[in-house]
């Protein structure tokens, strides 16, 4: 029995007992009445001081646009069309500046540095590690990644500024709700399209720990910026080439779009699986205010998306690509017995690769490229050259990462390495479904503080990738006889 009068000896629990006692004496619904009072007062003050003159032209225009963008029949096609157009502009627009950068950094810069190394009397292994490993990898990453990012990010930010993202979240909310996830996952997924690590951090907007975990684990199915270039390049070289030249761009953009949409579908499927098994629970409700449309500020958007997003992501890629280049050069040139370490690895992984429509080279590339998805393609090229011993395509010789001057030369090289359309399709699928990059894995660990969930987030996509690619390869080979 607590004393009647509060004293310094009282504990917190005594106060709670007192509260319980007092609450019983009060009329019911204290909280509701208090909230009602606040609302009534707000309404009174607003009615006195706010004046609306006539029906607003802009308001009715916004209502119509909202109706169109969030309507069941027009909302989804508009979303997909917008994404397709953004991708198409990125693919078509990135080609030319990408070529310029490749000429500057690879065709001109690399021989220059080679000569410099000779002139400095560098030992062959040092110039190999520095110029052929470190410099070439970095230069490749810059010339392939910078132009698409410099187009994709500003376009995406413009849509964001305009106020389109909340409409996307609104459209997808119902679907996310049905698979037992939170509607805000649409927003974290969109962030993941820029960078999965950013997407994982953005899941903090989700309050329920269960739904937040689902959003974190499935974020990897949002194609990140490090994987867009792989998708785009393979789609252009292999799938665009199947179509007549006039349609090549459209076919390439269409196939990248298909992979991105498959990623969205897999997000739903895996969210559903998680919320029906290990992360059981009901979806919590949330209210999302559709903000008014605002004319995007063009110059500021360009500036911030170039500085804040493009250059930061690029810097990260370079930081990871440079050491990976050194590792690559080393495993290709260090001999264990008769063959190099890389050759041994490729041979060991070839059977598994064949089963899922890929090859040993690609799997080794994915292991080397764990730090950054961006360097998957350069690694594949370098390893292919070494294995096939193709010469004449890249004058620098085996074990050196190089830029093929045109896409068709790239196709020749990869065909020489035994690539088919099946390999290309499976690579695009595997690029969607494999482990997150090391930065993202680290971020997941930081956000969840759980080794178990980090492991789930890391290995679940690989399982998806093996199953999907294996199934595709099986059906493909069966159809092809």
């Amino acid at each position: 029995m607590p004393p009647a009068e509060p004293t310094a000896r009282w504990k917190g629990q005594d106060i709670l007992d007192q509260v319980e006692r007092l609450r019983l004496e009060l009329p019911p619904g204290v909280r509701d009445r208090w909230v009602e009072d606040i609302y009534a007062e707000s309404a009174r003050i607003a009615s006195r001081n706010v004046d609306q003159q006539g029906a607003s032209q802009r308001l009715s225009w916004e209502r119509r646009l909202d109706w169109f963008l969030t309507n069941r029949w027009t909302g989804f096609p508009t979303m997909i069309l917008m994404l397709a157009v953004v991708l198409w502009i990125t693919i078509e627009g990135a080609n030319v500046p990408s070529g310029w950068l490749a000429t500057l950094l690879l065709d001109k810069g690399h021989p220059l540095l080679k000569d410099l190394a000779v002139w400095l009397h560098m030992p062959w292994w040092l110039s190999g590690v520095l110029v052929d490993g470190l410099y070439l990898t970095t230069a490749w990453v810059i010339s392939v990644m910078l132009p698409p990012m410099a187009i994709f990010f500003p376009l995406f930010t413009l849509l964001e500024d305009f106020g389109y993202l909340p409409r996307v979240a609104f459209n997808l909310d119902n679907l996310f709700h049905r698979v037992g996830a939170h509607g805000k996952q649409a927003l974290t997924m969109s962030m993941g399209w820029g960078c999965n690590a950013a997407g994982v951090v953005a899941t903090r907007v989700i309050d329920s720990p269960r739904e937040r975990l689902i959003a974190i684990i499935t974020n990897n199915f949002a194609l990140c910026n490090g994987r867009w270039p792989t998708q785009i390049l393979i789609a252009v070289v292999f799938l665009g080439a199947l179509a007549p030249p006039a349609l090549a761009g459209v076919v390439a953009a269409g196939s990248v779009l298909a992979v991105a949409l498959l990623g969205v579908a897999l997000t739903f499927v895996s969210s559903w699986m998680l919320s029906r098994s290990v992360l059981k629970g009901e979806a919590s409700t949330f209210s999302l205010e559709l903000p008014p449309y605002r004319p995007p500020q063009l110059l500021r958007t360009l500036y911030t998306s170039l500085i804040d997003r493009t250059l930061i992501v690029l810097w990260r890629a370079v930081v990871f690509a440079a050491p990976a280049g050194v590792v690559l050069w080393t495993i290709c040139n260090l001999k264990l017995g008769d063959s190099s370490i890389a050759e041994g690895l490729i041979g060991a992984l070839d059977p598994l690769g064949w089963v899922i429509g890929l090859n040993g080279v690609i799997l080794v590339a994915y292991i080397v490229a764990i730090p950054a998805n961006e360097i998957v393609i350069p690694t594949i090229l370098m390893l292919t050259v070494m294995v096939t011993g193709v010469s004449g395509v890249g004058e620098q010789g085996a074990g050196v990462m190089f830029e093929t001057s045109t896409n068709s030369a790239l196709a020749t090289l990869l065909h020489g390495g035994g690539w088919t359309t099946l390999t290309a399709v499976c690579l695009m699928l595997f690029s969607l479904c494999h482990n997150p990059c090391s930065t993202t894995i680290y971020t997941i660990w930081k956000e969840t503080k759980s080794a178990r969930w980090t492991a789930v987030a890391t290995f679940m996509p690989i399982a998806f990738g093996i199953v999907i690619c294996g199934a595709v390869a099986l059906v493909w080979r069966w159809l092809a006889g």
Partner: protein
Amino acid sequence: MAKPTLSPCDSCPVASVSRLERLGMKLSHADFVVALAGNPNTGKSTIFNALTGLRQHTGNWPGKTIARAEGAFSLDGKRYRLVDLPGTYSLLSATDDEEVARDFILFGRPDVTVVVLDATRIERNLNLALQVLQITNRAIICVNLIDEAKAHGITVDERGLARDLGVPVVPAAARSGQGVQELVREIADMANGTTVCTPRRLKYEVPGLREAMDEIAASLEAVYPNVPHRDWIAMRLLEGDPRIAEAVASGTLGNLEDDHAAS
């Protein structure tokens, strides 16, 4: 110290802003702490950027300020630390966002709290403003997005609003920089004690409520003598807020202030 000759510039807000120094992330040695609160998507981050010169990512969707962001500016030799709180609709329910905002306003003891309102949605936004005014005397209302309101044919009577709320009201269109100067001036005046306000407080009209709150507040004072806003805590306890009850029972209530202490 006698003031030197008065030129019109001394009282003009435009001139004072020319002395505004945006300090970005230089947070040390702040003389005053200013909190920035408001509903989601009212342009808090835009105002934050305009005052600090930082480029915190702003986007036209709610919920993108995840935790609180901090920056600094200096005016007339005084340094101000500005804290951008996550957007919230009220201080009453208990999502994580709202808890960050509410704990800071209550226990971080900001010298000034700026409540940003969306001029096109005044009525809904006022709910939060009234709740903030319930717990602090040192608040400024910034009616942002007045350019947008104008496009919608909405006019807001700022003077009337200031009269009704009992605190300064600054109209602004922060995206184009309009009103930022006046806002800085008001913040400085309030922080320095030049402006003193008696904001509108709602009465607790439920019979017996006032007495019950007083009784609980007295107990709180006995157990946690240093904790401010005992009335507010008492009200939350009577409403049955589980997080507050937990904090009272476990004694963490006494630590809340340390957690949010303005360095």
